[in-house]
Protein backbone atom coordinates (compact mmCIF):
# COMPACT_ATOMS: atom_id res chain seq x y z
CA UNK A 1 0.00 0.00 0.00
CA UNK A 2 1.62 3.23 -1.19
CA UNK A 3 0.39 6.75 -0.39
CA UNK A 4 -1.60 6.89 -3.63
CA UNK A 5 -3.34 3.63 -2.65
CA UNK A 6 -4.38 5.13 0.68
CA UNK A 7 -5.78 8.21 -1.08
CA UNK A 8 -7.87 6.02 -3.43
CA UNK A 9 -9.03 3.80 -0.55
CA UNK A 10 -10.10 6.64 1.75
CA UNK A 11 -11.73 8.69 -1.03
CA UNK A 12 -13.72 5.70 -2.31
CA UNK A 13 -15.01 4.55 1.07
CA UNK A 14 -15.30 7.93 2.79
CA UNK A 15 -17.15 9.54 -0.11
CA UNK A 16 -19.67 6.72 -0.22
CA UNK A 17 -20.47 6.94 3.48
CA UNK A 18 -21.02 10.72 3.43
CA UNK A 19 -23.24 10.34 0.37
CA UNK A 20 -25.30 7.67 2.15
CA UNK A 21 -25.77 9.86 5.22
CA UNK A 22 -26.73 12.83 3.06
CA UNK A 23 -29.37 10.75 1.24
CA UNK A 24 -30.75 9.58 4.59
CA UNK A 25 -31.29 12.99 6.16
CA UNK A 26 -34.80 13.31 7.54
CA UNK A 27 -35.16 9.61 8.43
CA UNK A 28 -36.89 10.58 11.67
CA UNK A 29 -39.81 8.17 11.90
CA UNK A 30 -39.73 4.42 12.50
CA UNK A 31 -41.19 3.90 9.02
CA UNK A 32 -38.52 5.95 7.24
CA UNK A 33 -35.74 4.57 9.44
CA UNK A 34 -36.61 0.88 9.00
CA UNK A 35 -38.38 0.81 5.60
CA UNK A 36 -37.28 4.07 3.94
CA UNK A 37 -40.99 4.94 3.98
CA UNK A 38 -41.36 2.47 1.08
CA UNK A 39 -39.87 4.87 -1.46
CA UNK A 40 -36.96 2.94 -2.96
CA UNK A 41 -36.49 2.42 -6.72
CA UNK A 42 -35.61 -1.04 -8.06
CA UNK A 43 -31.99 -0.32 -9.05
CA UNK A 44 -31.04 0.86 -5.55
CA UNK A 45 -32.63 -2.22 -3.96
CA UNK A 46 -31.11 -4.56 -6.56
CA UNK A 47 -27.53 -3.45 -5.92
CA UNK A 48 -28.20 -3.33 -2.16
CA UNK A 49 -29.38 -6.97 -2.30
CA UNK A 50 -26.24 -7.95 -4.21
CA UNK A 51 -23.93 -5.95 -1.93
CA UNK A 52 -25.46 -7.51 1.18
CA UNK A 53 -24.90 -11.00 -0.20
CA UNK A 54 -21.37 -10.34 -1.51
CA UNK A 55 -19.07 -10.37 1.51
CA UNK A 56 -15.33 -9.79 1.59
CA UNK A 57 -14.83 -13.54 1.55
CA UNK A 58 -16.75 -13.73 -1.74
CA UNK A 59 -13.94 -11.78 -3.40
CA UNK A 60 -10.98 -13.08 -1.44
CA UNK A 61 -11.92 -16.72 -1.40
CA UNK A 62 -13.78 -17.30 -4.68
CA UNK A 63 -10.86 -16.16 -6.86
CA UNK A 64 -8.55 -18.45 -4.86
CA UNK A 65 -11.03 -21.27 -5.26
CA UNK A 66 -10.84 -21.00 -9.05
CA UNK A 67 -7.02 -21.07 -8.77
CA UNK A 68 -7.07 -24.25 -6.68
CA UNK A 69 -10.22 -26.05 -7.75
CA UNK A 70 -11.50 -24.45 -10.95
CA UNK A 71 -14.73 -22.71 -11.88
CA UNK A 72 -17.22 -25.37 -10.78
CA UNK A 73 -18.12 -23.25 -7.72
CA UNK A 74 -20.29 -21.10 -10.04
CA UNK A 75 -22.91 -23.87 -10.05
CA UNK A 76 -23.78 -23.02 -6.45
CA UNK A 77 -25.74 -20.04 -7.84
CA UNK A 78 -27.59 -21.78 -10.68
CA UNK A 79 -30.80 -22.11 -8.65
CA UNK A 80 -30.79 -18.43 -7.68
CA UNK A 81 -32.60 -17.01 -10.76
CA UNK A 82 -35.38 -19.61 -10.37
CA UNK A 83 -35.77 -18.62 -6.71
CA UNK A 84 -35.99 -14.93 -7.70
CA UNK A 85 -38.90 -15.70 -10.04
CA UNK A 86 -40.70 -17.76 -7.37
CA UNK A 87 -40.25 -15.01 -4.76
CA UNK A 88 -41.48 -12.35 -7.22
CA UNK A 89 -44.68 -14.36 -7.71
CA UNK A 90 -45.25 -15.12 -4.01
CA UNK A 91 -43.30 -13.40 -1.24
CA UNK A 92 -43.07 -9.89 -2.71
CA UNK A 93 -46.83 -9.25 -3.14
CA UNK A 94 -47.64 -11.04 0.15
CA UNK A 95 -45.19 -8.95 2.20
CA UNK A 96 -46.12 -5.74 0.40
CA UNK A 97 -49.86 -6.16 0.99
CA UNK A 98 -49.32 -7.25 4.60
CA UNK A 99 -47.54 -3.89 5.05
CA UNK A 100 -44.97 -5.37 7.44
CA UNK A 101 -41.57 -4.26 8.75
CA UNK A 102 -40.23 -7.81 9.07
CA UNK A 103 -40.97 -11.11 7.38
CA UNK A 104 -41.81 -12.59 10.78
CA UNK A 105 -44.48 -9.97 11.49
CA UNK A 106 -46.41 -11.52 8.58
CA UNK A 107 -46.32 -14.92 10.35
CA UNK A 108 -48.39 -13.46 13.20
CA UNK A 109 -50.96 -12.16 10.71
CA UNK A 110 -51.17 -15.60 9.10
CA UNK A 111 -50.74 -17.85 12.18
CA UNK A 112 -50.32 -16.33 15.63
CA UNK A 113 -47.79 -14.70 17.94
CA UNK A 114 -46.03 -17.91 19.05
CA UNK A 115 -45.09 -18.88 15.48
CA UNK A 116 -43.78 -15.34 14.91
CA UNK A 117 -41.77 -15.37 18.13
CA UNK A 118 -40.29 -18.84 17.45
CA UNK A 119 -39.10 -17.89 13.95
CA UNK A 120 -37.85 -14.45 15.12
CA UNK A 121 -35.73 -16.13 17.79
CA UNK A 122 -34.38 -18.67 15.28
CA UNK A 123 -33.39 -15.74 13.04
CA UNK A 124 -31.73 -13.80 15.88
CA UNK A 125 -29.68 -16.85 16.88
CA UNK A 126 -28.74 -17.67 13.29
CA UNK A 127 -27.70 -14.14 12.25
CA UNK A 128 -26.23 -13.39 15.65
CA UNK A 129 -23.90 -16.37 15.37
CA UNK A 130 -22.68 -15.35 11.92
CA UNK A 131 -22.50 -11.56 12.14
CA UNK A 132 -18.95 -11.36 13.53
CA UNK A 133 -17.63 -13.61 10.78
CA UNK A 134 -18.11 -11.01 8.02
CA UNK A 135 -15.76 -8.72 9.98
CA UNK A 136 -13.21 -11.22 11.26
CA UNK A 137 -12.65 -13.10 7.99
CA UNK A 138 -11.30 -10.14 5.97
CA UNK A 139 -9.37 -8.85 9.02
CA UNK A 140 -7.44 -12.13 9.28
CA UNK A 141 -6.41 -11.98 5.63
CA UNK A 142 -5.58 -8.25 5.58
CA UNK A 143 -3.42 -8.72 8.67
CA UNK A 144 -1.21 -11.24 6.90
CA UNK A 145 -1.15 -9.49 3.53
CA UNK A 146 -0.83 -5.83 4.54
CA UNK A 147 0.47 -6.14 8.08
CA UNK A 148 -2.50 -4.20 9.46
CA UNK A 149 -3.46 -4.83 13.06
CA UNK A 150 -6.44 -7.19 13.11
CA UNK A 151 -7.94 -5.47 16.17
CA UNK A 152 -7.69 -2.06 14.53
CA UNK A 153 -9.13 -3.34 11.22
CA UNK A 154 -12.23 -4.87 12.82
CA UNK A 155 -12.79 -1.89 15.14
CA UNK A 156 -12.39 0.78 12.43
CA UNK A 157 -14.65 -1.12 10.02
CA UNK A 158 -17.20 -1.92 12.74
CA UNK A 159 -17.39 1.64 14.10
CA UNK A 160 -17.70 3.12 10.60
CA UNK A 161 -20.59 0.79 9.75
CA UNK A 162 -22.39 1.44 13.06
CA UNK A 163 -22.02 5.18 12.54
CA UNK A 164 -23.83 5.38 9.20
CA UNK A 165 -26.22 2.50 9.93
CA UNK A 166 -27.40 3.83 13.30
CA UNK A 167 -27.57 7.45 12.12
CA UNK A 168 -29.16 7.02 8.71
CA UNK A 169 -31.14 3.79 8.96
CA UNK A 170 -32.15 1.77 5.93
CA UNK A 171 -31.94 4.68 3.46
CA UNK A 172 -28.28 5.25 4.32
CA UNK A 173 -27.65 1.51 4.06
CA UNK A 174 -29.34 1.16 0.68
CA UNK A 175 -27.50 4.09 -0.92
CA UNK A 176 -24.10 3.20 0.55
CA UNK A 177 -24.70 -0.42 -0.54
CA UNK A 178 -25.52 0.87 -4.02
CA UNK A 179 -22.19 2.67 -4.41
CA UNK A 180 -20.24 0.00 -2.53
CA UNK A 181 -21.53 -2.51 -5.09
CA UNK A 182 -20.41 -0.24 -7.95
CA UNK A 183 -16.94 0.01 -6.34
CA UNK A 184 -16.89 -3.80 -6.07
CA UNK A 185 -17.82 -4.27 -9.74
CA UNK A 186 -15.27 -1.64 -10.81
CA UNK A 187 -12.53 -3.14 -8.62
CA UNK A 188 -13.31 -6.60 -9.94
CA UNK A 189 -13.21 -5.45 -13.58
CA UNK A 190 -9.89 -3.66 -12.98
CA UNK A 191 -8.41 -6.78 -11.34
CA UNK A 192 -9.39 -8.96 -14.32
CA UNK A 193 -8.13 -6.50 -16.95
CA UNK A 194 -4.84 -5.95 -15.09
CA UNK A 195 -4.31 -9.69 -14.65
CA UNK A 196 -4.72 -10.17 -18.42
CA UNK A 197 -2.43 -7.17 -19.10
CA UNK A 198 0.29 -8.66 -16.86
CA UNK A 199 0.41 -11.94 -18.82
CA UNK A 200 3.49 -12.47 -21.02
CA UNK A 201 3.06 -10.76 -24.40
CA UNK A 202 3.07 -14.01 -26.37
CA UNK A 203 0.44 -15.68 -24.15
CA UNK A 204 -2.52 -13.29 -24.01
CA UNK A 205 -6.04 -14.03 -22.79
CA UNK A 206 -6.65 -17.03 -25.06
CA UNK A 207 -3.30 -18.53 -24.11
CA UNK A 208 -4.24 -18.09 -20.44
CA UNK A 209 -7.51 -19.96 -21.02
CA UNK A 210 -5.60 -22.77 -22.69
CA UNK A 211 -3.18 -23.09 -19.76
CA UNK A 212 -5.94 -22.90 -17.12
CA UNK A 213 -8.19 -25.24 -19.10
CA UNK A 214 -5.39 -27.76 -19.60
CA UNK A 215 -4.95 -27.89 -15.83
CA UNK A 216 -8.68 -28.63 -15.43
CA UNK A 217 -9.60 -25.21 -14.00
CA UNK A 218 -12.27 -24.37 -16.58
CA UNK A 219 -15.06 -26.67 -15.46
CA UNK A 220 -18.05 -24.38 -14.88
CA UNK A 221 -20.65 -27.11 -15.51
CA UNK A 222 -20.23 -30.62 -14.07
CA UNK A 223 -23.06 -32.87 -15.25
CA UNK A 224 -22.35 -35.92 -13.05
CA UNK A 225 -24.64 -35.88 -10.00
CA UNK A 226 -23.48 -36.91 -6.55
CA UNK A 227 -25.33 -36.49 -3.24
CA UNK A 228 -22.20 -35.47 -1.41
CA UNK A 229 -20.94 -32.90 -3.86
CA UNK A 230 -22.62 -29.52 -3.97
CA UNK A 231 -20.79 -28.32 -7.06
CA UNK A 232 -22.60 -30.05 -9.89
CA UNK A 233 -25.39 -28.95 -12.22
CA UNK A 234 -28.23 -30.73 -10.39
CA UNK A 235 -27.17 -29.91 -6.83
CA UNK A 236 -26.67 -26.33 -7.98
CA UNK A 237 -30.12 -25.99 -9.52
CA UNK A 238 -32.18 -27.75 -6.82
CA UNK A 239 -30.09 -27.30 -3.68
CA UNK A 240 -29.09 -23.79 -4.71
CA UNK A 241 -32.73 -22.88 -5.37
CA UNK A 242 -33.80 -23.96 -1.86
CA UNK A 243 -30.92 -22.06 -0.31
CA UNK A 244 -31.74 -18.91 -2.30
CA UNK A 245 -35.44 -19.19 -1.40
CA UNK A 246 -34.50 -19.34 2.29
CA UNK A 247 -31.96 -16.57 2.14
CA UNK A 248 -33.83 -14.06 -0.02
CA UNK A 249 -37.36 -15.00 1.06
CA UNK A 250 -37.13 -15.66 4.81
CA UNK A 251 -33.95 -13.98 6.08
CA UNK A 252 -34.69 -10.47 7.30
CA UNK A 253 -31.22 -9.25 6.31
CA UNK A 254 -32.32 -9.70 2.67
CA UNK A 255 -36.11 -9.25 3.00
CA UNK A 256 -35.59 -5.80 4.52
CA UNK A 257 -33.76 -4.70 1.33
CA UNK A 258 -36.88 -5.14 -0.82
CA UNK A 259 -39.49 -4.21 1.81
CA UNK A 260 -38.30 -0.64 1.13
CA UNK A 261 -39.70 -0.78 -2.43
CA UNK A 262 -42.13 1.90 -3.54
CA UNK A 263 -44.36 -0.74 -5.18
CA UNK A 264 -44.65 -4.47 -5.81
CA UNK A 265 -43.26 -3.85 -9.29
CA UNK A 266 -40.12 -2.11 -8.00
CA UNK A 267 -39.40 -4.87 -5.45
CA UNK A 268 -39.94 -7.58 -8.07
CA UNK A 269 -37.61 -5.88 -10.53
CA UNK A 270 -34.88 -5.66 -7.88
CA UNK A 271 -35.01 -9.42 -7.25
CA UNK A 272 -35.16 -10.27 -10.96
CA UNK A 273 -32.15 -8.03 -11.65
CA UNK A 274 -30.28 -9.89 -8.90
CA UNK A 275 -31.26 -13.13 -10.68
CA UNK A 276 -29.81 -11.86 -13.96
CA UNK A 277 -26.61 -10.26 -12.64
CA UNK A 278 -25.45 -12.72 -9.98
CA UNK A 279 -24.25 -15.56 -12.22
CA UNK A 280 -22.26 -13.37 -14.66
CA UNK A 281 -20.63 -11.62 -11.67
CA UNK A 282 -19.57 -14.91 -10.07
CA UNK A 283 -18.34 -16.09 -13.47
CA UNK A 284 -16.09 -13.02 -13.80
CA UNK A 285 -14.71 -13.51 -10.26
CA UNK A 286 -13.87 -17.15 -11.04
CA UNK A 287 -12.46 -16.25 -14.46
CA UNK A 288 -10.13 -13.78 -12.71
CA UNK A 289 -8.89 -16.69 -10.57
CA UNK A 290 -8.18 -18.69 -13.74
CA UNK A 291 -6.21 -15.80 -15.28
CA UNK A 292 -4.22 -15.43 -12.03
CA UNK A 293 -3.48 -19.16 -12.29
CA UNK A 294 -2.12 -18.63 -15.82
CA UNK A 295 -0.11 -15.61 -14.66
CA UNK A 296 1.54 -17.75 -11.98
CA UNK A 297 2.34 -20.38 -14.60
CA UNK A 298 4.81 -17.92 -16.13
CA UNK A 299 5.82 -15.96 -13.01
CA UNK A 300 6.94 -18.10 -10.10
CA UNK A 301 4.58 -17.81 -7.10
CA UNK A 302 5.75 -18.31 -3.50
CA UNK A 303 5.47 -21.94 -2.37
CA UNK A 304 2.79 -20.84 0.12
CA UNK A 305 0.72 -17.69 -0.38
CA UNK A 306 0.30 -17.17 3.35
CA UNK A 307 3.42 -15.13 4.24
CA UNK A 308 3.57 -16.14 7.89
CA UNK A 309 3.41 -19.87 7.08
CA UNK A 310 5.97 -19.41 4.28
CA UNK A 311 8.47 -17.76 6.63
CA UNK A 312 7.92 -20.51 9.20
CA UNK A 313 8.53 -23.44 6.84
CA UNK A 314 11.71 -21.77 5.55
CA UNK A 315 13.22 -22.50 8.97
CA UNK A 316 12.54 -26.25 8.69
CA UNK A 317 15.47 -28.60 8.00
CA UNK A 318 13.80 -30.22 4.99
CA UNK A 319 12.93 -26.89 3.34
CA UNK A 320 16.00 -26.52 1.03
CA UNK A 321 15.31 -29.92 -0.54
CA UNK A 322 11.59 -29.12 -0.96
CA UNK A 323 12.41 -25.70 -2.43
CA UNK A 324 14.78 -27.25 -4.99
CA UNK A 325 12.05 -29.66 -6.12
CA UNK A 326 9.51 -26.80 -6.19
CA UNK A 327 11.74 -24.67 -8.42
CA UNK A 328 12.30 -27.63 -10.74
CA UNK A 329 8.57 -28.48 -10.89
CA UNK A 330 7.72 -24.85 -11.67
CA UNK A 331 10.32 -24.64 -14.47
CA UNK A 332 9.09 -27.92 -15.93
CA UNK A 333 5.45 -26.80 -15.89
CA UNK A 334 6.33 -23.43 -17.47
CA UNK A 335 8.24 -25.14 -20.27
CA UNK A 336 5.39 -27.60 -20.83
CA UNK A 337 2.87 -24.72 -20.91
CA UNK A 338 4.88 -23.15 -23.73
CA UNK A 339 4.47 -26.35 -25.69
CA UNK A 340 0.86 -27.08 -24.70
CA UNK A 341 -0.55 -27.03 -28.23
CA UNK A 342 1.77 -29.86 -29.32
CA UNK A 343 1.81 -31.98 -26.17
CA UNK A 344 -1.08 -31.44 -23.78
CA UNK A 345 -0.48 -34.67 -21.83
CA UNK A 346 3.05 -33.59 -20.88
CA UNK A 347 1.66 -30.27 -19.59
CA UNK A 348 -1.02 -32.03 -17.54
CA UNK A 349 1.58 -34.34 -16.00
CA UNK A 350 3.82 -31.36 -15.16
CA UNK A 351 0.86 -29.48 -13.64
CA UNK A 352 -0.02 -32.50 -11.47
CA UNK A 353 3.60 -32.79 -10.34
CA UNK A 354 3.66 -29.09 -9.41
CA UNK A 355 0.44 -29.49 -7.39
CA UNK A 356 1.94 -32.47 -5.56
CA UNK A 357 4.99 -30.44 -4.47
CA UNK A 358 2.75 -27.59 -3.32
CA UNK A 359 0.71 -30.07 -1.32
CA UNK A 360 3.90 -31.21 0.42
CA UNK A 361 4.51 -27.55 1.27
CA UNK A 362 1.06 -27.38 2.90
CA UNK A 363 1.76 -30.57 4.84
CA UNK A 364 5.07 -29.15 6.04
CA UNK A 365 3.21 -26.01 7.18
CA UNK A 366 0.74 -28.18 9.09
CA UNK A 367 3.61 -29.84 10.95
CA UNK A 368 5.57 -26.64 11.60
CA UNK A 369 2.55 -24.55 12.63
CA UNK A 370 0.85 -27.44 14.40
CA UNK A 371 -2.51 -26.71 12.76
CA UNK A 372 -4.52 -29.28 10.88
CA UNK A 373 -6.00 -28.62 7.46
CA UNK A 374 -3.74 -25.71 6.50
CA UNK A 375 -4.73 -24.08 3.24
CA UNK A 376 -3.82 -20.75 1.72
CA UNK A 377 -6.71 -20.39 -0.77
CA UNK A 378 -7.87 -17.13 0.82
CA UNK A 379 -4.44 -15.53 0.37
CA UNK A 380 -3.85 -16.19 -3.34
CA UNK A 381 -5.81 -13.30 -4.85
CA UNK A 382 -4.64 -10.60 -2.42
CA UNK A 383 -1.06 -11.83 -2.65
CA UNK A 384 -1.29 -11.34 -6.43
CA UNK A 385 -2.97 -7.92 -6.08
CA UNK A 386 -0.53 -6.45 -3.57
CA UNK A 387 2.58 -7.84 -5.28
CA UNK A 388 1.87 -7.14 -8.95
CA UNK A 389 -0.80 -4.46 -9.35
CA UNK A 390 0.34 -0.84 -9.93
CA UNK A 391 -0.05 1.80 -7.19
CA UNK A 392 -3.57 3.18 -6.98
CA UNK A 393 -5.15 -0.01 -8.25
CA UNK A 394 -4.10 -1.87 -5.08
CA UNK A 395 -6.00 0.74 -3.06
CA UNK A 396 -9.02 0.31 -5.33
CA UNK A 397 -9.13 -3.49 -4.90
CA UNK A 398 -8.67 -3.20 -1.12
CA UNK A 399 -11.48 -0.59 -1.13
CA UNK A 400 -13.69 -3.08 -3.00
CA UNK A 401 -12.99 -5.78 -0.41
CA UNK A 402 -13.67 -3.45 2.54
CA UNK A 403 -16.83 -2.20 0.77
CA UNK A 404 -17.97 -5.82 0.45
CA UNK A 405 -17.42 -6.44 4.16
CA UNK A 406 -19.14 -3.22 5.25
CA UNK A 407 -22.19 -3.62 3.00
CA UNK A 408 -22.76 -7.12 4.38
CA UNK A 409 -22.35 -6.11 8.02
CA UNK A 410 -24.61 -3.06 7.66
CA UNK A 411 -27.50 -5.16 6.33
CA UNK A 412 -27.04 -7.76 9.04
CA UNK A 413 -26.93 -5.43 12.06
CA UNK A 414 -29.80 -3.38 10.62
CA UNK A 415 -31.99 -6.49 10.29
CA UNK A 416 -31.00 -7.84 13.72
CA UNK A 417 -31.99 -4.48 15.24
CA UNK A 418 -35.27 -4.38 13.32
CA UNK A 419 -36.32 -7.86 14.48
CA UNK A 420 -35.21 -7.09 18.06
CA UNK A 421 -37.37 -3.95 18.17
CA UNK A 422 -40.37 -4.83 15.96
CA UNK A 423 -40.82 -8.53 16.74
CA UNK A 424 -39.65 -8.61 20.36
CA UNK A 425 -39.46 -5.20 22.10
CA UNK A 426 -42.54 -3.49 20.60
CA UNK A 427 -44.52 -6.74 20.70
CA UNK A 428 -43.72 -8.01 24.20
CA UNK A 429 -41.84 -5.42 26.27
CA UNK A 430 -43.32 -2.01 25.58
CA UNK A 431 -46.38 -1.89 23.36
CA UNK A 432 -47.67 1.65 23.80
CA UNK A 433 -44.80 4.09 23.44
CA UNK A 434 -44.77 6.81 20.78
CA UNK A 435 -43.02 6.51 17.41
CA UNK A 436 -40.04 8.59 18.53
CA UNK A 437 -39.40 6.11 21.35
CA UNK A 438 -39.21 3.14 18.93
CA UNK A 439 -36.99 5.13 16.55
CA UNK A 440 -34.45 5.68 19.32
CA UNK A 441 -34.84 2.09 20.48
CA UNK A 442 -33.97 0.97 16.93
CA UNK A 443 -30.89 3.24 16.91
CA UNK A 444 -29.73 1.83 20.25
CA UNK A 445 -30.39 -1.75 19.08
CA UNK A 446 -28.37 -1.10 15.89
CA UNK A 447 -25.47 0.22 17.98
CA UNK A 448 -25.74 -2.78 20.32
CA UNK A 449 -25.61 -5.31 17.45
CA UNK A 450 -22.71 -3.43 15.85
CA UNK A 451 -20.67 -3.54 19.06
CA UNK A 452 -21.68 -7.19 19.46
CA UNK A 453 -20.39 -7.90 15.92
CA UNK A 454 -17.02 -6.27 16.66
CA UNK A 455 -16.64 -8.14 19.97
CA UNK A 456 -17.53 -11.54 18.48
CA UNK A 457 -15.18 -10.81 15.56
CA UNK A 458 -12.35 -10.35 18.07
CA UNK A 459 -13.12 -13.76 19.58
CA UNK A 460 -13.61 -15.34 16.18
CA UNK A 461 -10.07 -14.55 15.07
CA UNK A 462 -8.62 -16.76 17.77
CA UNK A 463 -10.96 -19.70 17.34
CA UNK A 464 -10.27 -20.67 13.73
CA UNK A 465 -12.36 -23.54 12.51
CA UNK A 466 -14.68 -23.37 15.52
CA UNK A 467 -16.19 -20.26 13.97
CA UNK A 468 -17.06 -22.09 10.79
CA UNK A 469 -18.69 -24.81 12.88
CA UNK A 470 -20.81 -22.21 14.69
CA UNK A 471 -21.74 -20.62 11.38
CA UNK A 472 -22.78 -24.02 10.04
CA UNK A 473 -24.98 -24.62 13.09
CA UNK A 474 -26.75 -21.32 12.42
CA UNK A 475 -27.43 -22.29 8.82
CA UNK A 476 -29.26 -25.39 10.05
CA UNK A 477 -32.24 -23.14 10.87
CA UNK A 478 -32.88 -22.29 7.23
CA UNK A 479 -34.94 -25.40 6.44
CA UNK A 480 -37.42 -24.93 9.28
CA UNK A 481 -37.90 -21.24 8.55
CA UNK A 482 -38.44 -21.85 4.82
CA UNK A 483 -40.95 -24.62 5.61
CA UNK A 484 -43.13 -22.39 7.77
CA UNK A 485 -43.21 -19.65 5.11
CA UNK A 486 -44.27 -22.23 2.50
CA UNK A 487 -47.11 -23.32 4.82
CA UNK A 488 -48.06 -19.68 5.38
CA UNK A 489 -48.19 -18.68 1.71
CA UNK A 490 -49.38 -21.84 -0.02
CA UNK A 491 -51.85 -23.44 2.40
CA UNK A 492 -55.03 -22.07 3.87
CA UNK A 493 -55.95 -24.91 6.19
CA UNK A 494 -52.78 -25.12 8.30
CA UNK A 495 -53.32 -23.43 11.67
CA UNK A 496 -50.88 -21.98 14.23
CA UNK A 497 -50.24 -25.13 16.30
CA UNK A 498 -49.67 -27.29 13.20
CA UNK A 499 -47.17 -24.73 11.90
CA UNK A 500 -45.42 -24.36 15.26
CA UNK A 501 -45.01 -28.12 15.76
CA UNK A 502 -44.06 -28.49 12.09
CA UNK A 503 -41.06 -26.17 12.60
CA UNK A 504 -40.01 -28.09 15.72
CA UNK A 505 -40.27 -31.41 13.83
CA UNK A 506 -38.38 -30.07 10.81
CA UNK A 507 -35.54 -28.69 12.93
CA UNK A 508 -35.34 -31.95 14.89
CA UNK A 509 -34.96 -33.81 11.58
CA UNK A 510 -32.23 -31.41 10.39
CA UNK A 511 -30.19 -31.70 13.60
CA UNK A 512 -30.57 -35.50 13.54
CA UNK A 513 -29.29 -35.57 9.94
CA UNK A 514 -26.43 -33.25 10.80
CA UNK A 515 -25.19 -35.22 13.78
CA UNK A 516 -25.55 -38.56 12.00
CA UNK A 517 -23.62 -37.16 9.01
CA UNK A 518 -25.90 -38.95 6.56
CA UNK A 519 -26.02 -36.55 3.67
CA UNK A 520 -24.27 -33.39 2.57
CA UNK A 521 -24.95 -29.99 4.08
CA UNK A 522 -26.82 -28.72 1.03
CA UNK A 523 -29.63 -31.24 1.45
CA UNK A 524 -30.33 -30.85 5.19
CA UNK A 525 -32.41 -27.77 4.59
CA UNK A 526 -34.30 -29.28 1.67
CA UNK A 527 -35.26 -32.32 3.77
CA UNK A 528 -36.04 -30.19 6.84
CA UNK A 529 -38.29 -27.92 4.81
CA UNK A 530 -40.22 -30.91 3.43
CA UNK A 531 -40.64 -32.31 6.98
CA UNK A 532 -42.14 -29.00 8.16
CA UNK A 533 -44.62 -29.01 5.26
CA UNK A 534 -45.59 -32.68 5.78
CA UNK A 535 -46.03 -32.37 9.57
CA UNK A 536 -47.86 -29.04 9.25
CA UNK A 537 -50.29 -30.44 6.69
CA UNK A 538 -50.74 -33.68 8.68
CA UNK A 539 -51.51 -31.88 11.94
CA UNK A 540 -53.88 -29.48 10.20
CA UNK A 541 -56.38 -32.35 10.04
CA UNK A 542 -56.49 -32.65 13.85
CA UNK A 543 -56.14 -29.00 14.85
CA UNK A 544 -59.48 -27.37 15.63
CA UNK A 545 -60.35 -24.34 13.56
CA UNK A 546 -60.72 -21.06 15.38
CA UNK A 547 -64.44 -20.14 15.59
CA UNK A 548 -65.01 -17.59 12.87
Amino acid at each position, binding site marked *: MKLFDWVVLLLALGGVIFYGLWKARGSNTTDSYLRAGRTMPWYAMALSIMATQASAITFISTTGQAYVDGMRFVQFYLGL*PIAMVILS*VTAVPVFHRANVYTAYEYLEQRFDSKVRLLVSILFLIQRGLAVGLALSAPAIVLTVILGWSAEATTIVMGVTVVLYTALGGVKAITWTDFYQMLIMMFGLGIALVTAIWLLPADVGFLGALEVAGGAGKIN*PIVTAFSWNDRYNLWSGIFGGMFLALSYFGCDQSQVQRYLTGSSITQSRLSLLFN*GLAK*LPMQFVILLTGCVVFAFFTYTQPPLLFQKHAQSQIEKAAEYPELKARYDAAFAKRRAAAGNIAQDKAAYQAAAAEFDAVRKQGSQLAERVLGEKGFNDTNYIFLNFVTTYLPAGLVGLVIAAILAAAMSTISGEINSLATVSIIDVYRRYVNQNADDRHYLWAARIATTFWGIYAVVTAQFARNMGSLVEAVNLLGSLFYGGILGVFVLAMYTKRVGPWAAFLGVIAGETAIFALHFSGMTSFLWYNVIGCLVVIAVGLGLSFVEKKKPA
Partner: protein
Amino acid sequence: EPPPILGTWPRLYTAVLLFLAILIALFYWFGQVWS
Protein backbone atom coordinates in the same frame (compact mmCIF):
# COMPACT_ATOMS: atom_id res chain seq x y z
CA GLU B 1 -49.45 -3.19 -12.75
CA PRO B 2 -47.55 -4.60 -15.73
CA PRO B 3 -43.74 -4.64 -15.74
CA PRO B 4 -41.91 -1.85 -17.59
CA ILE B 5 -40.63 -4.26 -20.26
CA LEU B 6 -42.08 -7.25 -22.17
CA GLY B 7 -45.68 -6.36 -21.32
CA THR B 8 -46.70 -9.03 -18.79
CA TRP B 9 -45.11 -10.55 -15.70
CA PRO B 10 -45.17 -14.17 -16.97
CA ARG B 11 -43.26 -13.01 -20.06
CA LEU B 12 -40.63 -11.28 -17.93
CA TYR B 13 -40.30 -14.36 -15.69
CA THR B 14 -39.92 -16.57 -18.78
CA ALA B 15 -37.22 -14.24 -20.08
CA VAL B 16 -35.26 -14.53 -16.80
CA LEU B 17 -35.47 -18.34 -16.90
CA LEU B 18 -34.53 -18.36 -20.59
CA PHE B 19 -31.49 -16.23 -19.73
CA LEU B 20 -30.53 -18.83 -17.10
CA ALA B 21 -30.83 -21.65 -19.66
CA ILE B 22 -28.68 -19.73 -22.15
CA LEU B 23 -26.05 -19.05 -19.45
CA ILE B 24 -25.89 -22.74 -18.49
CA ALA B 25 -25.43 -23.65 -22.17
CA LEU B 26 -22.73 -20.99 -22.59
CA PHE B 27 -20.90 -22.10 -19.44
CA TYR B 28 -21.07 -25.72 -20.62
CA TRP B 29 -19.73 -24.76 -24.05
CA PHE B 30 -16.97 -22.65 -22.46
CA GLY B 31 -15.89 -25.64 -20.38
CA GLN B 32 -15.91 -27.93 -23.41
CA VAL B 33 -13.80 -25.58 -25.54
CA TRP B 34 -11.12 -24.89 -22.93
CA SER B 35 -10.45 -28.24 -21.35
